[in-house]
């Protein structure tokens, strides 16, 4: 019993203190299951782009969905598949990535955002306007890489 608790404590300590920020890299699924987002690193910052959509085609046009709500008309033809919806996150330590933004392609709005890794397979994504207290948190789950 004692060994078990000690082992769990070692695992927890390793999880909390052995972080570099790159633990967030990988493919994640928001709670609504409508998309999958691949988080990658550019320079020293973290970005997430849509790599899979449950409904990839726009029912109005029968063509692949594009960013039709983008306030910049010249950029409304950017495909949603491949769209970078998480931008410019920096790792602050203690499993927290901050100073980023999240884009909601359904309404064309961008929100401030923080990411908290609760465990290696779970992210709390909090989008907000102005103050973090006035926001909404979504839970994202990591997708395991298919075994070959």
């Amino acid at each position, binding site marked *: 019993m004692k060994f078990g608790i000690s082992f769990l404590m070692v695992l927890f300590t390793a999880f909390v203190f052995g972080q570099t920020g790159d633990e967030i890299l990988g493919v994640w699924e928001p709670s609504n299951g409508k998309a999958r987002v691949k988080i990658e690193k550019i320079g020293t910052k973290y970005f997430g782009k*849509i790599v899979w959509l449950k409904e990839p085609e726009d029912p109005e046009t029968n063509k692949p969905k594009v960013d039709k709500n983008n306030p910049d008309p010249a950029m409304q033809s*950017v495909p949603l598949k491949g769209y970078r919806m998480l931008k410019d996150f920096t790792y602050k330590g203690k499993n927290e990535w901050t100073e980023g933004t999240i884009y909601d392609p359904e309404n064309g709005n961008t929100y401030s955002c923080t990411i908290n890794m609760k465990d290696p397979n779970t992210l709390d994504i909090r989008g907000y306007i102005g103050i973090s207290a006035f926001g909404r948190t979504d839970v994202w789950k990591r997708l395991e890489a298919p075994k070959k």
Partner: protein
Amino acid sequence: MKIMHSQFYHKTLGVFLISCLSIMYVSCSGPKEFVSYAIPDTVFELEGPLYEGSNTVQVAYSIDVESILEPFGSKDAKAIKRVTLKTAQFKGDFDLSEHITSLVFNLAAENVDMMQIAVLNPLPDGTTEVQLTPSSEAKLVDFFHQKDVFLVLDVNLKHDMEESLLLHGNFEFEVGVSN
């Protein structure tokens, strides 16, 4: 006494308003001259194997701010007041539309938020060279104050590919300078 007080009040108000307008004019004055800045023949290599969908390639690049400012006798990057992308061209030695559905070009830097600055979706059939449509609203001046930036290209592939993919990018910016 009352009239003198009123005159003093109006004079002070006048000086205050003129000062405010002068400060606004100086701080809001746009660029006085425009120059062209080119980033020629930048190689974007996507290493295979590649998968259907969006693949990203990034190239680190240092903006030659000195060469932009030299004709104006300035060394301060803050003299650059406005930057817009005029052209973004990509070339390959193959039919681009055979493998690629769309291209999105972005700029990123340590202290500036990433920005989408040009797109082409879909690619026209049977061509080895394409011109992307530049964003009409992207304000790029902060990137030119940074010097070191990342040129980030998102390549949407039609299908999986075993081999690598090589594209050459040519970009032209219009830079507004005020010294």
